[in-house]
Structure formats: C-alpha cells, structure tokens
C-alpha cells in the first residue's frame, strides 16, 4: 500500500521484539494493523475490505 501512494509509510513491526510498541498499541493478537493511531484492524482481511477499513475512517481515499 505504501507503494501505491507516496503519502503512505508502512512499518512491519515484530511485536515480541518491541513490547513497548505492542503495549502502546494494545496488540493482543496478530496481525494487527494500526493506521495513524486512529484505526485498528485485527486479523487479516480480504484486500478490498482492508483498504476500505484502513482509509474510510480517516475520511480519505474515497
């Protein structure tokens, strides 16, 4: 997704190596995606649903 937009930076974070980040973002299961500290997506979703959730709550990309 970062590749599809120059505005997006994507981090793959290894949760067990950085427990402080896992705690800060309340990671109780993986994969968990956090978008701008505003949107949380737990689990894997089909691509279209993932893009929809990741962007729609931010009011962008529609």
């Amino acid at each position, binding site marked *: *997704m*970062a*590749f*599809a*937009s*120059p*505005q*997006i*930076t*994507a*981090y*793959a*974070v*290894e*949760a*067990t*190596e*950085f427990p402080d*980040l*896992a705690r800060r*973002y309340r*990671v109780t299961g*993986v*994969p*968990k*995606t*956090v*978008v*701008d*500290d505003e949107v949380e997506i737990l689990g894997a979703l089909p*691509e*279209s649903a993932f*893009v*929809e959730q*990741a*962007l729609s709550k*931010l009011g*962008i*990309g*529609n």
Partner: protein
Amino acid sequence: MALISPSDQERLRESFAEMTRPVRLLFFTQTLDCETCLQTRQILDELPPLSDKIAIEEVNLILEADKAKTFGIDRAPAIAVMYQDHEEVVDSRIRFLGAPAGYEFISLVHAVLLAGGRPSQLSQESRARLAAVNRLVTMQVFTTPT
C-alpha cells in the same frame, strides 16, 4: 552456515532475476542493547549473493542518528527499503522493525521484489483509492515471528 537453505536460495535467485531496478536495504543497527541486530545482519548478508541488484547499507542508529531520523527510524534492528529509478534513489516507504525472520522474511522478499520493479499485486480499485490519499498516513502492521 547459511540461514537460507540451498533450495530456497535457488528459488530466491529465480525471483530476484526478474528485478529491473537496483534495491538498497538500509539496515539500522546498534552495537549494544540489540539482541537481534546480528541475526538481522546475517539474514540480510545472504541476499546480495543471490542478486547483483540487491545491496545492503549499514546505518548506525547511534552514530548516524540524524540519518536514521530522516527515515523515521528510532530503534534497531530496522530496515528501510530503497530503490534506484534511473539516476534517482527512491524511498519505498516500506520499513521493517525487528529481525526479518520467519514469515517476516517472506514479507521482506516481497518488498524487495516490489521495489525491484515487480508490478503491484493490489487490484486496480485499491490502487485508485490509495492514489487518492491526500495526507501523510502511517501504517503499522504488528506480527510475530512464526
């Protein structure tokens, strides 16, 4: 001993052969207090022998803190995926925090192939929506190494 098995090396060599652009992996490391920095370096060191389009550049998180900061990196080990488009070095804005072991290694390979010129696997609809994003967005995907 190689971390990547000979058969996996062969498969990776074939995948990387399709790369059309040079990819540079910036490896952010520190000498002390970094349990997995050495492991990460060992994994990364196995990639350039599989493709002349892949290079590793080490960045010391402590000594080159300013450089790390420009990439939004404040911990180690971390990897930023860069690629060269004609004369220009481009930041893919794909980052890895933590050692790229287990499934993360597959993600790293995908990121290298994408930066290396492989077409996006996203649908046209998704790409159109993402292209319309008009402000900076940070996405973090948390995983575990299984």
